[in-house]
């Protein structure tokens, strides 16, 4: 990966960052900031908090950059570090990282099967903004697994290791999250159709 504006490769930036060059840190930051921040934002649904978490993830990375030996991809290393930072924050706040059982229904919960056989498909593409809003509405436990798997691309065995659950639990949580999102999206679509 190369910073197009500078012509410096990621590998060069890493080596310079190990020597304490600020410019190199900045290159690495700009190369990965969107991925890191987006992950934090999806997990906590709060822009200010997401920025704090992204900042902390990069700081941890830069503090430990001297230990990076290149056995895995730098982005993978950073990615995992970011997830750990977010999960630690969720645990500190006492929020459930993964639901072990069905979560309590919230007040604005959409009844399941409300849109049963009458309107069976989310036809066409999904509005990205609606999808983002629907993800924000997910209970924290479901949201964690959904974001890690469907948005960020982690496998269930990786998720299970990170959040401390079984692979089966991870798959179950993901499925429930998708079902809830489907209900939210259909509800939003129906509401939008009503208001025109």
């Amino acid at each position, binding site marked *: 990966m190369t910073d197009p504006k500078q012509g410096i490769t990621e590998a060069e930036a890493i080596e310079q960052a190990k020597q*304490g060059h600020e410019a190199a840190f900045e290159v690495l930051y700009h190369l990965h900031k969107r*991925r890191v921040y987006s992950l934090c934002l999806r997990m906590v649904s709060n822009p200010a908090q997401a920025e704090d978490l992204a900042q902390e993830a990069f700081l941890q990375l830069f503090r430990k950059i001297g230990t990076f030996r290149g056995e895995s991809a730098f982005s993978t290393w950073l990615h995992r570090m970011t997830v750990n930072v977010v999960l630690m924050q969720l645990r500190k706040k006492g929020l459930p990282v993964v639901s072990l059982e069905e979560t309590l229904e919230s007040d604005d919960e959409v009844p399941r099967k409300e849109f049963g056989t009458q309107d069976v498909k*989310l036809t066409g593409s999904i509005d990205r903004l609606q999808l983002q809003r629907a993800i924000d509405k997910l209970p924290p436990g479901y949201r964690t697994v959904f974001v890690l798997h469907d948005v960020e691309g982690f496998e269930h065995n990786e998720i299970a290791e990170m959040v401390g659950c079984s692979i089966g639990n991870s798959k179950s949580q993901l499925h429930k999250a998708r079902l809830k999102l489907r209900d939210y999206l259909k509800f939003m679509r129906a509401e939008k159709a009503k208001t025109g």
Partner: protein
Amino acid sequence: MTCSEVERVLPELLDDASERAFPAGFETHVKSCPACSGLVSDLRLIASESRQLAASEEPSPRVWLRIAAELRAEGLISEPAIREPQSAPSRPILISTSPGRRWSAWWLAPVAAALLAAGAYVVSHKPAPQVAKQTPAVPVTVPVRVPSAVPENATVSPDRVTTPAPQQLARKAAKPEDRVGPAARPAVEPEPSAEDQQFLSVVSTRAPSMRATYESELQAVNADIRETQAYVNRHPGDADARQHLMDAYQQKALLYQMALDRIQ
């Protein structure tokens, strides 16, 4: 296979990494059952569309400023890398240190301190009137990051804005195409303050390759200050908003400080 059996095996089957063969009867049932067909199709669509969300958001410039400040404070930054400048890069990295007389920009330090003091004053007192002149003469958008009590995309109705009357008249007289939508910044940034102009002038003289970047960063942080200041003017009792404004002033002070460290 029944609908409930299909739903029971779906968590395993919809996982992209799974290479498990579909159980007998699964595909036959899904093809013939509109509800199950719709369910499978929807869940696959949600999974595929969600991947588009990775790396879709951009953090504000203040994040890097805070990181850089912390790295300096911890002594993790020693010196910028040195290499021959090529075509003027738009980012302030890899500057060359030419010999010769160094330009003294000593005045940046007290300006940075003054910015911090201004922010501290705002947090502890009702906002000073002179800051209101930075409020643009267009409808102000309340940023999403300001406390959640503010509705998304809220705009200020003309009769509640505390801007001076001439600016209100200018805004009302603005052509429709010139008006800014709720989620957009002003099409033309207000003129930079005298301190900002002097700051950019020094940067242009001492490190011309860095000017574009610092100008961009300054515009972003000034816009943040303006928007937050406008919100604080309307909600002077909101402590979170005042703290946010203080943070914005600190970011600007950091920007000055970083430039000072580079060009001295």
